[in-house]
């Protein structure tokens, strides 16, 4: 059962091709990772799916309807949520109010109770009264994702959830995020540069290069492909003797 399907997406910025005829389909209740070097087209893909950018050509089908041309607000209201590379928070509001706002906008039956539940699930209770602008980076990331996971989301897009987070915190954060997403039955697509994270949490990996897809399959397969090694992960310089 496909929850999101991109068909023939094209997007250019002048001479730069960010998307060259991308067609991808995502099933419900899976975890997929998008990998690729900077400029390969991953964030452009997320931006097109969430309505921030309009593709030059192609369709994006979510839940049976073409969402190309809809605004981020409309697409969010259909059930597609997103977290950001640089956390997009409300700096002067405290953590509690950031979450309360997200729940109220999503029209949860009891926003206060929903907020409390999120604070628990994401272990943010200790930071509840702190202004979002003063949080450590890892907590900012968590808050960013927690806000995206408000009541209505069915598809969650994470843009580099562990970038800027210290090595020892990465797994903790991903455990919390993935746990919460799975508990809510949400399909997850995450962009990531850290291959350990990719291998650990993704059931499927899609590798981007130069606006196109060079690999699509389980992590064990894709992460070993020659092209993926050459253009995304990196090759061994010193071969074993």
């Amino acid at each position, binding site marked *: 059962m496909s929850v999101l399907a991109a068909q023939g997406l094209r997007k250019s910025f002048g001479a730069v091709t960010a998307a060259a005829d991308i067609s991808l389909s995502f099933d419900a209740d899976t975890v997929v990772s998008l990998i690729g070097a900077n400029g390969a087209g991953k964030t452009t893909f997320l*931006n097109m799916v969430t309505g*921030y950018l309009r593709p030059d050509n192609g369709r994006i089908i979510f839940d049976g309807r073409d969402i190309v041309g809809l605004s981020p607000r409309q697409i969010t209201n259909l059930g597609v949520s997103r977290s*950001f*590379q*640089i956390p*997009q928070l409300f700096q002067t509001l405290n953590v509690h109010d950031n979450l309360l706002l997200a729940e109220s906008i999503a029209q949860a039956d009891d926003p206060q109770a929903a907020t409390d539940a999120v604070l628990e699930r994401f272990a943010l209770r200790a930071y509840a009264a702190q202004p979002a602008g003063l949080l450590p980076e890892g907590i900012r990331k968590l808050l960013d994702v927690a806000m995206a996971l408000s009541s209505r989301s069915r598809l969650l897009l994470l843009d580099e959830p562990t970038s800027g987070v210290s090595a020892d915190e990465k797994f903790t954060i991903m455990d919390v995020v993935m746990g919460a997403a799975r508990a809510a039955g949400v399909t997850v697509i995450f962009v990531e540069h850290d291959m350990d994270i990719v291998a650990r949490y993704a059931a499927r990996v899609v590798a981007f290069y130069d606006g196109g897809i060079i690999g699509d399959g389980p992590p064990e397969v894709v992460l070993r492909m020659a092209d993926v090694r050459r253009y995304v992960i990196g090759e061994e310089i010193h071969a074993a003797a």
Partner: protein
Amino acid sequence: MNNILSVAFDGIVYASWLFLMSAGLTLIYGVMRILNVAHGSLYALGAYAACSLAGAWLTAGLPAAGSFAMLLAAAILVGCVFGPLLERGLLQWMYGKDEVVLVLITYAVFLIMEDVIKLVWGVDSMLLPEPYALPGNFMLGGLAYPVYNLIIIAIALVTGLALAFALHATRRGKLLLAVIHDREISMAMGIDIGRVYLATFALGATLAALGGAFTAPTVAVTPGIGVEVIVLAFAVVVIGGLGSLSGAAIGALLVGLVRSATVRYWPEAELFSIYAVMAIVLIARPKGLFAAQEARKI
């Protein structure tokens, strides 16, 4: 035909004067991200200084033609003394504050200057008709026009071309353009932002004072002449695109011609027309005619 000619001429004269005001304003905004309300005070100071200097010159019996040099001297004096005074004395401590707060700060300076001018020069109007009458008249389409108006147009043209040349063809000018484009990168590249700010503000102030100095012979110089000018200059700068010199020129031309036409054909709408043009331009091009492209945020 005569009508159109005179409307066009009047429009161009008005546009020249507007351009002098707006060029400085748009440069200051482009470089320093300050929408300088005190520009109106600098204009007024230029006018008053011109009256005093040129007035003293003429009273001393010196050749009347020299009074033009005095107008120029007044502008340079005001711009190169008060510009740096304002920038070093106050504004340099305020960089980094929100753009709208900076507007409020320059508005506060404007209010202060209004009263300072009244204290120094009094509330009576000052007149300096000699430079205006001196060059005589010329005929255009059967009507007599003061040659002085041609001088204003000439000054605006020369200033505009000089600025354009300086910005695009000299090293210092290109540094300025770099700072307009991206302040942070410019600093990272080693450009001395403090000096650029000081120079820009002094230049902008001089341009404003120039506008005031050369307007002085055509009006009665009273406290408050800066007030309406500043709002007009804003309109021009916003129409043209904040930070764009060519925008200021085109905006000034547009506003000048529209105003001239409304004064001739629909006088009730004079004050209204300029702001209506601004509103219409912003509806079609939200950031002004020549505004810079903005980069992606996420």
